[in-house]
């Protein structure tokens, strides 16, 4: 399967009369987009705002971040099973508005979390401070229950991203990049001497605000399975996960999965990137056993020499991570795992909730409990009064001068467990 991504580099985003992309600038007709979003009868209102790199803006609470993409050639459309039909995606051509994103905010529950600072010390920890963001503040109709509210917000994000993506359909990209995965047998013939490597992608799947979807299927209902990396680039996996801001994988992370990108970079040179095994992180311990049995079995079935395993979320996924690692190592396949740490504010506590001697190659996204001071910024998009009660916040987090003292875990994407960032710890 072969996909060409066409990057259209975005340097600014503005509101305008007509929605279009011109000379690297996205113009958005607010009213037109608004009418599309409000087709959902569960939403009462939607407002739009812009947040650009370097601006004194704080966005919070962040639900999801989504990159605008559009299918130009090949079967299916972006976000199959959610917005588009369940056609198999991942081949042909897809255009990307690189440097832009849709950010959804809104309080589904009272302790919603996630901060993106566009400037200052907080901006260094979130990749989304470098993007030109269209921020959506959606309000549900009165009395809407949390599950429906979450769904409405999730879809509003996809729709807005697809709307922006559509603007890029007929634009010639500034740059293109091609990704190809051969069938197992073809791959073996093409790179007989290179080590064969797969990627085990763990998805958060634990209930309301903790879910991930694959082609529209709630991933807690899947058994570990195989997917082409390029399918993920077309939005086959989307996030419905709204908790643990620092180490949840937003839809943006899935679309731009860094492990996939960096494995492709070495593909055909130092390794043969065979494909992606997706697996879940369920609450039921027997599910964890079954899913990790399957991911290790699939790794064995593919005949790989090594895998990289990435994680999502806090606490019990440590158990899935260690099970995956242990069982895959037991099959004689080398592993590297990517995680993050909760080592306490002083860094002295045991970092993970589970451990095993076979996990001898670990990449860490840093200690999420480390405390950071975020200065007052001129503008807040969303609500800030909640920081006292979110994870990583504490009584007195919000100071009178508008600055906040919080643990890193409040920052969206700060300790990402796909290895999206440079942050680490020793």
């Amino acid at each position, binding site marked *: 399967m072969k996909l060409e991504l066409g990057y259209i580099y975005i340097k600014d985003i503005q509101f305008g009369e007509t929605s279009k992309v011109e000379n690297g600038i996205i113009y958005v007709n607010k009213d037109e987009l608004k009418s599309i979003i409000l087709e959902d009868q569960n939403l009462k209102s939607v407002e739009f705002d812009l947040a650009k790199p370097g601006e004194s803006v704080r966005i919070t609470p962040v639900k999801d971040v989504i990159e605008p993409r559009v299918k130009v050639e090949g079967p299916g459309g972006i976000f199959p099973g959610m917005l588009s039909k369940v056609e198999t995606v991942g081949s042909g051509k897809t255009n990307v508005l690189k440097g832009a994103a849709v950010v959804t905010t809104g309080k589904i529950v009272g302790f919603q979390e996630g901060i993106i600072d566009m400037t200052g010390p907080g901006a260094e920890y979130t990749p989304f401070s470098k993007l030109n963001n269209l921020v959506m503040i959606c309000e549900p109709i009165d009395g809407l229950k949390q599950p429906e509210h979450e769904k409405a917000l999730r879809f509003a994000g996809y729709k807005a991203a697809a709307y922006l993506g559509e603007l890029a359909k007929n634009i010639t990209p500034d740059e293109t990049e091609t990704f190809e995965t051969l069938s197992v047998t073809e791959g073996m013939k093409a790179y007989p001497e290179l080590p064969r490597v797969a990627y085990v992608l763990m998805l958060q799947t634990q209930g309301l605000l903790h879910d991930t979807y694959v082609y529209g299927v709630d991933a807690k209902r899947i058994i570990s399975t195989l997917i082409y990396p390029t399918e993920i680039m077309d939005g086959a996996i989307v996030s419905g996960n709204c908790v643990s801001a620092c180490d949840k994988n937003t839809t943006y992370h899935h679309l731009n999965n860094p492990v996939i990108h960096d494995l492709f970079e070495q593909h055909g040179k130092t390794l043969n990137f065979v494909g992606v095994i997706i697996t879940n992180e369920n609450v039921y311990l027997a599910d964890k056993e079954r899913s990790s049995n399957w991911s290790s079995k699939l790794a064995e079935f593919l005949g790989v020499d090594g895998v990289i395993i990435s994680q999502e979320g806090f606490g019990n996924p440590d158990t899935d991570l260690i099970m995956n690692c242990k069982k895959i190592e037991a099959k004689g396949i080398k592993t590297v795992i990517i995680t993050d*740490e909760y080592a306490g504010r002083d860094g002295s506590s045991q*970092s993970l909730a589970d451990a095993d001697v076979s996990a001898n190659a670990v990449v860490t996204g840093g200690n999420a409990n480390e405390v950071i001071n975020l200065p007052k910024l001129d503008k807040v998009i969303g609500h800030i009064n909640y920081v006292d009660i979110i994870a990583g916040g504490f009584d007195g987090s919000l100071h009178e001068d508008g600055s906040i003292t919080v643990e890193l875990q409040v920052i969206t994407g700060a300790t990402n467990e796909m*290895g*999206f960032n*440079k942050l*680490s710890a020793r």
Partner: protein
Amino acid sequence: MIKVVQYINQFFANVGGEEMAHIPAEIREGHVGPGLAFQQAFKDEAEIVATIVCGDSYFNENLDKAKAEVLAMVKQYNPDLFIAGPAFNAGRYGVACGTIAAAVKEELGIPSITGMYKENPGADMFKNKVYMVSTKNSAAGMRDAVKKMAPLALKLAKGEKIGSSAEEGYMPNGIRVNFFEKERGSKRAVGMLLKKLAGKEFETEFPMPDFDRVDPNPAVKDITKAKIALVTSGGIVPKGNPDHIESSSASKYGEYDIEGVMDLTEETFETAHGGYDPIYANADSDRVLPVDILRDLEKEGKIGSLYRYYYSTVGNGTAVKSAKAFAAEIGKKLKADGVDAVILTST
């Protein structure tokens, strides 16, 4: 100007080798031996005002006395910074450096640093107590050691924020510190996997906790015939703690005769352990060391017999190395006396 006092051994002070290792601590004005390289690295920011020279044998054989003497010398100069070593792979020198550097930090509250090779026995003993720079294994690595130790020492003296071990060059000390790597995590993961696949050396970013697991022995064949011993790290001792087992970081264990003892009472036994609320253990030590129950089982014929002695130490903060040494000795005695099984109780 930052005032510095440095500690070095007889060898680096050019007094002599092993034959001079007995010399007691003495103090000299200014820098001596490796102090010159440190002084050059400090430029005008700091000055080594005095150097303490002490023989390795003297320090290690008179630990408490030597420590007190050196501390008094340091105190007299009231420095802003204390440097011990670097000791490279010299074992007794490393232990001396670790001991004194940690003591200066803890007891005098003066910023303190040392350096040695990672396999120096002083490293495992003190790397979590004081900043310890990882050096090469011989004095040929002096230049490299100074290059790492001097900047970190200045930062400590100035009270600046200390970065992660990977950035600053000190040995990982159990405190996790965030920092920005050059490459993103996924790229580091790919690089690590390629090394692992090629059988090359790689360094994990998060070492798993030490698993010193022991496979269980096969089950006792006939428990009704077995001689059972009790061993505890819960600190249960005869009232008055006759062997003076320390309440933490125990340096010894005790062997106590319980022939004819049917029950541990408030009047006869207590705990020496300082790491938990002792009220319930003191009121009835059987709660930690179940002599009463085992006597019942003995009477009922459910076990063969209870071994005549029990062994006790305090697990609170006790070094794994000491615990292993105790266990080896105790195990030997139990084996010699034909004990079939041991019940180990903690707290």
